[in-house]
């Protein structure tokens, strides 16, 4: 199985007036298909910057990044949009659903920008909602759904484009314990049964325990990279 993500010596340097901020300082990393990786680190450690680059929302200052065999470090804005649309699914801490727009339409959104027919968009979005256990709630608005359900809509939206990788940034940060467990079980199942590669940012050890591999980021560098002997999800 080939490597899905290959990062070599990634640097991200911001210039704030005269001050130079080195958010990433030479990160190298390989992630194989089917892994469930947890990235941990304090705020300001550079893990958000790293996730933004992995998610093609940002480009590194130096270094190279291959995603699914494609060098994207020097890609243009439109090329990055295309990569995000086809290869990456995002799940955010605050769900980031479009308000006053139905679950189905939220889940449709990536396909909307792919220019598919309306019928196909709807069919695939409905299937994705069913995969996260929301069949029958297609026409609910985000405000009519619980936090856990909203996050499941967000997972459906991430799944709908059948991405190579699912990026979850503190996916349970705004949820209670029970909903958190639901969400993690869904992600774990998607990883285990459907073989979807998942990168998870979290600061909770209980959540990180679902991962087969844990990375620790500190001062813009990966300081620890270890496999978890018995992933929590296999209990």
């Amino acid at each position, binding site marked *: 199985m080939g490597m899905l993500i290959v990062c070599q010596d990634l640097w991200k340097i911001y210039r704030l007036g005269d001050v130079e901020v080195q958010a990433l300082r030479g990160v190298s990393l390989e992630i194989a298909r089917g892994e469930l990786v947890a990235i941990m680190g304090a705020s300001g450690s550079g893990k958000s910057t790293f996730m933004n680059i992995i998610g093609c*929302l*940002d480009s590194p200052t130096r270094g190279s990044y291959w995603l699914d065999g494609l060098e994207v470090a020097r890609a243009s*804005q*439109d090329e990055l949009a295309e990569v995000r*649309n086809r290869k990456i699914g995002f799940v955010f801490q605050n769900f980031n659903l479009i308000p006053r727009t139905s679950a189905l339409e939220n889940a449709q959104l*990536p396909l909307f*920008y792919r*220019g598919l027919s309306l019928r196909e968009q709807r069919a695939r979005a409905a299937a994705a909602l069913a995969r996260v256990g929301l069949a029958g709630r297609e026409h609910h608005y985000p405000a009519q759904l619980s936090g856990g359900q909203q996050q499941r809509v967000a997972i459906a*939206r991430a799944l709908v484009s059948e991405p190579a990788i699912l990026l979850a940034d503190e996916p349970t940060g705004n949820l209670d314990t029970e909903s958190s467990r639901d969400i993690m079980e869904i992600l774990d199942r998607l990883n285990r049964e459907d073989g979807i590669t998942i990168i998870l940012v979290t600061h909770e050890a209980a959540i990180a325990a679902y991962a087969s591999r844990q990375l620790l980021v500190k001062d813009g560098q990966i300081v620890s990279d270890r496999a978890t002997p018995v992933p929590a999800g296999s209990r």
Partner: protein
Amino acid sequence: MGAFVLLTILTAFRVLSRNRLRAGLTMLGIVIGVGAVIAMVSIGEGAKAAVQAQVASIGTNVIIILPGATTVGGVRGGQGGAVTLTTADAFDLKKKIPLLSETAWSKRDVMQIVAGNKNWNVPVNGISPGYLTIRDWSYASGGPITQVDMDAGSRVALLGQTVVENLFEPGEEPVGSTIRIKNVPFTVIGVLAPKGQSAQGSDQDDIVFIPFSTAERKVLGTQFLGSVAALFASTDHPGDLPAAVEAIREVLRGRHRLQPDQQDDFTIRTQVDIGKVQEGTSQTLTLMMFAVASISLLVGGIGIMNILLVSVTERTREIGIRIAVGAKRRHILTQFLIEAMTLSLVGGLLGIVLGVLGAQATTVIAGWPTIISGESIMAAFLFSLAVGLFFGLYPANKAARLNPIEALRYE
């Protein structure tokens, strides 16, 4: 792309209907601007058409020559203050200027005419037969005054519609009956088709025509034989009018033995001169109102831009989400442009309805003629589209350039 545009239009309608009051107020500027343009243009067009009809009612390619001011020993007579034109001038003009297709002359005076037990004061015109052709008079019944009538000095008369209404009962046929002008009996040989108001606002149908020769000898009298109140001439083509006017001036100055330093003792007017004054007035009015309407559209456009900027700020996070899941710059740009154009187009359509109703109300209430042209509606439609496009561009561009990372974090 088809599904994308369609869904974006639906989304735009949904976003706007969510905030109806705001959308309505935003549109108001466009509604008023477009409504004003439609109403103004239709009033302007109506006025122009009315003026054109009035000018056309003078006749076709008509040149009117009036006796002018003469100065005798320092006393200046006003226009028409002296009798300087004669039938001989008319014959000479016709002979010397091939450009003229027809010449005619007339003299007039207000007289009492009597039919049965009714009487009416009306301008009685003694005319040469060519006059009726030049002025484009047509007949409701009967026929024209001919050269035979002229040569014989026949006592025959043509009556205008207003005269008929005042001297005859409704339904009564005037042709063949006898009327008296200054106690001289005349046979009515025709009734003229109505012409309506003149460009100066007088009733052109309140008129009686009799042969010039009869008028001169039996009714109106004369200072000297052959003196006329006005000469008329016409050309075949409107383009010949300026040349004909110059030729007439030259011939008449020669006949009247005017020295080069002397002023003309006559005045020449053409239909074009008369039309110009009227059209100038209505054009100035139209232009002024158009300026006011344009300002209203401009203000309306700025209103749209303002509310879209607010909308972009409010929806920063939504824009971030869209960019994150793969929207390209042009997708975001298109979305907000379509929202802007939806606002301006709905406003434009409402404005068209308002303008048409306004124009019709003007006709009903003020009695002004209005013409609603398809072109003005089309222009208003396209213009409101352009306003949306132009004023939507800046906010849409702002949305499309948002940084997704910051937009996603926006509270």
